[in-house]
């Protein structure tokens, strides 16, 4: 979090800097099956975020010693392109943040993937952040879920993710970069909408018990929209195939 003393006024008359209401999502677009080689893929634009997710597998887990004879393992790599953020060129290669996000993303997918359907296998999830503007881990998970589904991987549910945060005492949904930098709290959350189980929870800042309750409710409400966009992306692939236009 940046120094709060020079924080810009993030909310004016109940509107945010980009004109959104407090509980309003940024525009979200997803296209499924965009990469030919991958078994499943998705391209997502969420506000100014541009994210590509691809899934390879299930395939024989390598090296052999990582194989689990009764179920599949998931490998996940989240990475930000060196040109993805406003400002300086960043070093390529995983930093500590990327390694942690890869881990919690993998765990989110482990909770809904029917791993026992694929003994001794691995499923690789690659998330590439091509352009970042806050909320990239949520965008990556939302895209990767579509990629997993388009790869035909057996899952109990199509998960989505979005963050909520706090500016002063106001709760806001789907933080962009500047809000993320100056907010009093940021809580990325991934949800399995079938039963609203939380499959990723991270938070830092300050949050009362009541604010947590309200914020989670905002996430679940917005989730209906996000889930709908995910499903429509998948439906379009199959409609396209029927018309002979599919990849």
């Amino acid at each position: 979090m940046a120094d709060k003393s020079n924080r810009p006024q993030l909310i004016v008359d109940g509107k945010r800097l980009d004109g959104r209401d407090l509980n309003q999502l940024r525009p979200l677009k997803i296209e499924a099956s965009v990469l030919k080689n991958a078994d499943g893929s998705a391209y997502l634009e969420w506000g100014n975020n541009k994210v590509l997710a691809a899934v390879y597998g299930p395939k024989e887990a390598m090296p052999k010693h990582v194989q689990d004879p009764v179920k599949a393992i998931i490998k996940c790599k989240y990475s930000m392109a060196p040109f993805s953020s406003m400002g300086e060129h960043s070093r390529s290669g995983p930093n500590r943040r990327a390694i942690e996000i890869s881990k919690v993303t993998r765990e989110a997918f482990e909770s809904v993937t029917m791993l026992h359907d694929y003994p001794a296998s691995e499923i690789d999830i690659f998330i590439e952040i091509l352009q970042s503007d806050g909320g990239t881990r949520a965008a990556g998970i939302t895209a990767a879920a579509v990629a997993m589904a388009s790869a035909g991987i057996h899952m109990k549910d199509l998960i989505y993710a979005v963050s909520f945060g706090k500016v002063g005492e106001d709760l806001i949904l789907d933080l962009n970069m500047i809000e993320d930098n100056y907010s009093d709290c940021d809580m990325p959350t991934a949800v399995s909408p079938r039963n609203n189980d939380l499959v990723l929870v991270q938070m830092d800042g300050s949050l009362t018990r009541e604010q947590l309750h309200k914020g989670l409710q905002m996430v679940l409400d917005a989730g209906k929209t996000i889930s709908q966009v995910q499903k429509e992306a998948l439906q379009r692939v199959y409609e396209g195939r029927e018309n002979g236009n599919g990849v």
Partner: protein
Amino acid sequence: MEGFDIVKVSYVKELLLKNVREDGRKLMEFRQIKLATNIIDHAEGSAQIDLGATRVLAAVKLQVEEPMEDTPTQGNLMVSSELLPLAHADFEPGPPSPLSIELSRVVDRGIRAAETIDLSGLFIEEGKAWTAFIDLYVLNYNGNLFDASMMAAMAALASAKIPKYENGEGVYTERNEPLKINRLAASTTFAKVDKTILLDPNMHEENAASARVTIANDGTVVRAMQKGLGGSFSPKEIENLVDVSLSKYDELKKVIEQAAGK
């Protein structure tokens, strides 16, 4: 996990059906905590915790560095952790594992979010500020590294003294001024084993767990959270665990303060 541990997993699960834990604890009870400070004389602050059989040594070193470009009037905080090979048979030498990185980043966020140390207070003069390096050395692993590390880090910070500053560098032989502590954060980690949720999982309970969540608070508000493992929690469960977490604050704060001689 070796064969013995797999047997222990089913043992732990079977016991929990009757709400009984392997070591006889209540579901929302910590193991015995032993916390001592000033373990390493050469460090500016240090603490060692025994949380049951989990042992973590935390040490704070303060070093004069250039402030970061975007925060020219603040010092820095850098948390690292080492899952030492001597701490468990499954810990291997090499670059930090994802678990090790997660551990240090969760502790880092807890300290930052609770504003435990005032980073502006670490500023010395233009171009000079203290960087606080917190190293978490896991010496023996028996579950719940998160709470053990957080408590050790808090106690190490609370017992740290700033070296004298002279001619652009620290004089490590003269350390008198205590590092100012704004607010202590307490960390509580819960594991979900089948349908049962319990506090402070030991290693066997962690092996049996489908999900884990760490909640750090300052007695009033939640400061940091992190879910781990391939399972999930319902929103209601998280909210209830926040209540439990807040209720544990005073007990944990007292342990840290006593250890740091406050």
